[in-house]
């Protein structure tokens, strides 16, 4: 193992180095909420306060609003123009393991069958530098899903807090290429050991757990249990927070926007919590909120595993933390009848 380490004092040197080649995104509170925004070359203070973003880093790949193509009409009829490809490569510094894993889960959908050029284009154009968690929110439950606060799934380079330094691990070749700055020194065996301790300490801080054994089967058996679903949906207010801010939610809508002679076809995130999500002019199969709640839960814990053999949840806890009525997916999953 040729892992490196870097002193915390020198940490700004990393993005400084990287921003020559990449557009570097770091967590910031600039916009009034916590989101990944472009690094200004100065403030690296997020390390002091940052736990996770409100807006998941998914937004850098499947943004809230995205221009798919523009169209205009001339004497020969309609013409369609794709947006120019992004030249500059992107680097996300500080992505959390739960969110990096979420991207690996999204890849399954966007890679499958018909490839999605927008999402995949950004994925290929982006390098992920993860920072392992040292603290957890009381809504975090990543460890229940086979994840961990220092898990490296999906990242190219991983930083783990080992006291005065960060242990710097290259996970992929793209990650290796980032290890150019002279501020890095060779990590010792003691550092590796410290990283292990750090991981274990972080794990202990994740206090919430769910038992996901046989969850898909249980959900299948309970699909028609209307009483159960009505009960768990009772306090839901059908807003879009838990879906629009979920790192593994990807549903979108497609709409045309006109300005004078030119139009733009846009895609924007959508939410299965909204009644109009499935509304057709004559029918709507999910007008009642318990049906929507059921679909949301089952999609993550039953349908997605059936399709891709992966639970579409990484335990980031945003849906619990940000919910206006404290609707808690952990409690729902725990209370699914065994179906026996």
């Amino acid at each position: 193992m040729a892992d490196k380490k870097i002193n915390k004092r020198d940490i700004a040197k990393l993005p400084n180095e990287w921003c020559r080649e990449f557009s570097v995104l770091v967590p910031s509170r600039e916009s009034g909420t916590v989101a990944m925004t472009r690094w200004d070359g100065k403030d690296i203070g997020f390390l002091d306060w940052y736990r996770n973003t409100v807006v998941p880093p998914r937004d850098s790949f499947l943004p809230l609003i995205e221009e798919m193509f523009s169209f205009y009409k001339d004497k020969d009829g309609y013409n369609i123009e794709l947006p120019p490809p992004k030249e500059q490569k992107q680097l996300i510094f500080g992505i959390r393991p739960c969110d990096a894993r979420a991207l690996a889960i999204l890849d399954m959908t966007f890679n499958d069958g018909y490839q999605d050029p927008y999402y995949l284009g950004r994925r290929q154009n982006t390098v992920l530098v993860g920072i392992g968690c040292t603290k957890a929110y009381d809504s975090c439950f990543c460890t229940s899903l086979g994840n961990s606060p220092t898990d490296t799934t999906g990242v190219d380079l991983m930083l783990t807090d080992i006291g005065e330094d960060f242990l710097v691990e290259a996970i992929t070749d793209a990650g290796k290429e980032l290890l150019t700055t002279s501020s890095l020194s060779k990590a010792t065996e003691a550092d590796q050991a410290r990283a292990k301790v750090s991981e274990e300490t972080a794990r202990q801080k994740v206090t919430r757990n769910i038992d996901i054994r046989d969850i898909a089967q249980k959900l299948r058996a309970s699909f028609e249990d209307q009483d159960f679903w009505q009960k768990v949906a009772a306090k839901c207010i059908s807003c879009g927070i838990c879906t629009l801010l979920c790192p593994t939610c990807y549903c979108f809508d497609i709409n045309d926007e006109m300005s004078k002679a030119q139009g733009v076809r846009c895609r924007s995130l959508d939410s299965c919590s909204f009644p109009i999500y499935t509304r057709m002019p004559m029918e709507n199969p999910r007008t009642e909120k318990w049906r929507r709640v059921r679909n949301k839960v089952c999609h993550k814990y039953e349908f997605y595993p059936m399709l891709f053999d992966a639970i579409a949840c990484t335990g980031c806890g945003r849906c619990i933390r940000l919910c206006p009525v404290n609707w808690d997916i952990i409690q729902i999953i725990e209370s699914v009848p065994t179906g026996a």
Partner: protein
Amino acid sequence: MTVTDISRRKKFFAQGNAYVPHIVVIEKIIEETPDTRTFHFSFKDEKLRKDFIFESGQFAEYSVFGVGEAPFTISSSPTRRSHLECTIKRVGRVTNALHRLGVGAEIGFRGPYGNGFPLDYLQGKNLVFIAGGIGMAPLRSLIWSVIDNRDSYQKIDIIYGARSPADLCFRYDLDLWGRDKTINLVTTVDKGDEGWSGREGFVPQVVEQVAPSASDAVAIVGGPPVMIRLTFPVLKNLGFAPEQMLTTLEKRIKCGIGKCGRCNIGNIYVCRDGPVFSYAQIKQFISSEY
């Protein structure tokens, strides 16, 4: 079950991008009913006009630029390739905009999407087509395709109903099928008028009366969800096994390619796993999600 393997499906991307439509030109418009029109159209691109192929039952996304996209099945037959057809009822924003268009207008077309009817499975069988209203559109594509390969199939029954005589689509086809000795065509309306001398009654009831034999047969059902829901039990009583009942489902589909999420019934995505399903595939969910 895992995701349907769609690697062998024909894909016709514009500019290499699954979301970019081809431009097609409307060549003819047929007024089917007061609120339903059939559009005949062809690709603007000469080469694509020759190369484009699809299967009965497949659908496409049609765009009116500046208004939006909506999915409709291709209602013409793959065996008749002079142009494409789709039949559209005016019900919402995009369909209203489509109905405002005239001959010569350009619209966007992405497709074909979905699975189409399983011809291999249907060949050599007795076919019972059961349709209501505009639900005939996807079936009509298959019916013509079957007629054009008549020797490959056995008996053909067509039971078609609409709310009123004025709501019957494809009357020019019904004329031809009615005269075809190898086809048993039964039309019905919920409520007749003075000029109507045919049957009256809802489609599921008429199916019960006609009582097609289940032996070596496949029933293909198309129509509004409530008709589909009520027809399956009738067929079941007639001895049709779940695998012998096919239908094509309609959902709110946006992307058409299994990404945008909204057309799911359980773990099934109508846009890529369907829209053609056997009752066996969907019976778990159909009572509560469709």
